[in-house]
């Protein structure tokens, strides 16, 4: 038995270290959620601002820094979705789709990109967490605040729908 944890699972000593390790994960997740690179960057920045304020509360025994940061990113994104929803209702114009880039993930085939855009944000986020970021079921469940079984169900549906949309196009 070793007293030290392996490097990969050792909790970060500082937020800077956590940011170095997990910025891409946070950004990728937010990009899949919002389908807008600029918005994802803004939200990623906001996520780390919040993380800096909350860093003293981070407890490695309750989850990894990656899961903790993704949870903050999700809360930040939901706040953004709420404000967007209010704004759209208020203005009754300027739909989100108008601002969405045609290609939000570099390197994706056009048919897969279109199919992804047709999915809901809820479906895209489970794909981002489980497929793109390769989080396990328990960590994904912690980020989404649902059970691991619900994560499996949601992922299965999202993949099935994505496959249908890709093959439709």
């Amino acid at each position, binding site marked *: 038995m070793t007293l030290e944890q392996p490097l990969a699972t050792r909790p970060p000593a500082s937020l800077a270290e956590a940011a170095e390790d997990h910025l*891409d994960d946070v950004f990728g997740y937010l990009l899949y959620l919002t389908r807008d690179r600029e918005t994802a960057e803004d939200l990623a*920045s906001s996520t780390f601002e919040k*993380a800096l304020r909350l860093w003293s*509360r981070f407890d490695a025994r309750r989850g990894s820094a990656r899961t903790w940061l993704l949870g903050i990113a999700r809360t930040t994104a939901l706040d953004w979705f709420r404000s*967007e929803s209010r704004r759209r209702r208020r203005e009754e114009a300027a739909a989100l789709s108008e601002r969405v880039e045609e290609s939000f993930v570099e390197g994706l085939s056009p048919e897969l990109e279109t199919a992804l855009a047709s999915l809901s944000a809820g479906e895209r986020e489970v*794909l981002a967490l489980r497929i793109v970021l390769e989080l396990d079921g328990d960590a994904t469940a912690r980020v989404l*605040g649902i059970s691991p079984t619900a994560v499996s169900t949601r992922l299965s549906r999202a993949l*099935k729908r994505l496959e249908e949309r*890709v093959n439709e196009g």
Partner: protein
Amino acid sequence: MTVNQIVDELRATRPTAGEALRLQVLTLASAPPVTSPSLGDRLRGRRRFLLALPAAAALAVASAVAIGVTRPDATTQEASAPATSVEATRSIGAAQAPSTALAGPTADASTARGKTTPGPVPGRAQRYSASLTLAVDDTDALSEATQRALSIARDLGGYVVSVQYATGTEGAASLTLRVPSARAADAVTRLSGLGTIVSQNVQIDDLQESLDTLDGQLQRLRAQIAALNVALERADTAAERARLLERRAQAQAQLSELRASRAATAEAARNATIQLELRTEEGSGVAAPGSRLDRAVDKALAILAWEAVVVLALAVALAPVALVALAVWGARRARRRREEERLLAAS
């Protein structure tokens, strides 16, 4: 396109943050924390609650132990010593009770020593009777206590009316002592210290009224005899003289009886009677008080039990409020979850 191909493509095109964002975030994350975490921050939420529970339990136990150690006798006295009763059967004058009885077993001899033992009222003739039952450890202690009781009676100017002393597997001694009434309370107090008090009874009867009545009758009889003497000197006939002599003889006989009665009453008021029973612990029927440690543990346990009752009562009282709060919290959480699902489904 199969699911596996989709998955492979999604993983192969995993997004990465741009350099500008990376620089911005790393600069931000390298800054010192906005505020240093206070104790409240560090102990917030569930951790604070989890810490508060054992802390409260430790405080409860510590206070129980502290009280048990510092006041080990309080519970014993409260539990085993019923309230001492003082009863006045009838009143005389404005404030004087002619017959007062005080009785009650006491587990700790200290409660009976000195201040709680009533005594006769100075200046009034009162008959003081006390009976005292004490438990002693063994026959050796019984013998010593008996000797000391006799010594106390003599020291206070009293005397021993009777002594019965018997030892076997259990020992017992019965003493009847008479001491000057003025020192009766002192005697009871000192005798109480010879063992553990099993029972104590003090009876005070006021005799002043009887004495005053007797004095009045004596005075009237003396006046009557004096008048008869004068009449005898003035008697003219032998028959009248004989009648007066007979009346004077009757009065003198009554006077003697009244004098004897008054002397007996005054004697009863002058000396108190104390009946002392001494028994070894086995024969006393009363458990000896435990050691100081035992009493401290008993006291601590009693306080812990009391604390548990208070906590239980609070739990019962607060349970409905807690259930409502839990239901509200659950409903709000479910509502927020549904709202988030709708939001993400619509985006």
